[in-house]
């Protein structure tokens, strides 16, 4: 997302610090992650510190700070899948796809 589009997105929601989370959610939805330049732009327009925004965003697992990959693989690790070897399967997937 370029600078003007990002500015418009933030201004659409009113430049009110109370709208921080909805703004972050919109950016996360459109770009897949919260980039550093997005953080800086939000800080500038909402007149709050980057530190504060990072503190809020990093508390929630919804917000990612790295560009996502093209293909997403999910391995369920809920109770039933755990007792059926879910962890071992996830580790083997990571090993075979050289993900770690």
């Amino acid at each position, binding site marked *: 997302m370029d600078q003007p589009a990002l500015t418009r997105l933030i201004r659409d929601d009113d430049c009110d610090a109370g709208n921080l989370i909805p703004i972050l959610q919109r950016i996360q939805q459109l770009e897949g992650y919260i980039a550093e330049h997005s953080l800086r732009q939000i800080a500038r327009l909402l007149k709050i510190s980057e530190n504060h925004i990072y503190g809020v965003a990093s508390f929630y697992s919804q917000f990612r700070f790295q560009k996502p990959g093209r293909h997403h693989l999910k391995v369920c690790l809920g109770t039933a899948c755990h*007792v*059926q070897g879910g962890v*071992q*399967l996830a*580790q083997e997937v990571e090993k075979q796809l050289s993900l770690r």
Partner: protein
Amino acid sequence: MGSGGLIVLDESTGMVDLARYFLTFSESESCGKCTPCRVGARILVETLEKIARGEGEIEDLDVLYKVADMMQCTALCGGSQTAPNPVLTTLKRFLNEYLTHIQGCYCPAAVCTALFEYRIIAKKCTGWGRCIQVCSSGAVHGEKKEPHVIDVEQCIKCRAYVGVYSRFFIRE
């Protein structure tokens, strides 16, 4: 408010691993505000992981009891006060399983991967080959109708094999 669920598990479930699993959830869900939960949950997880790796000592059980009791008495919220429940109830009902992990360095449920391995008893193997199909790490080798062999180094102990052959599974 909230929800209640009933989970039914059979004898192939490792109770030490189960307690560890539920505590890792509590640890990651901890808000971090109070020390009993923030640090206590971490200590419980680390101690249970140590036991699951085969490095457990009998004193670790004392640590589990003390930290669990501390969390129940001093944590600020109901979530952390009840977080140690899986540890306390598994210690109460399955203490022998903890002792086998610590003193025998063996996981009777064949769950803690450091504490067991799968082997095929050659004279009982009919060479059906279904195990090769379900094995995700290519650890099983053998020709059809010939006894198969598990490469212990490759085996990730994922239990897919157990699912196919559960009727023939022997714990030694």
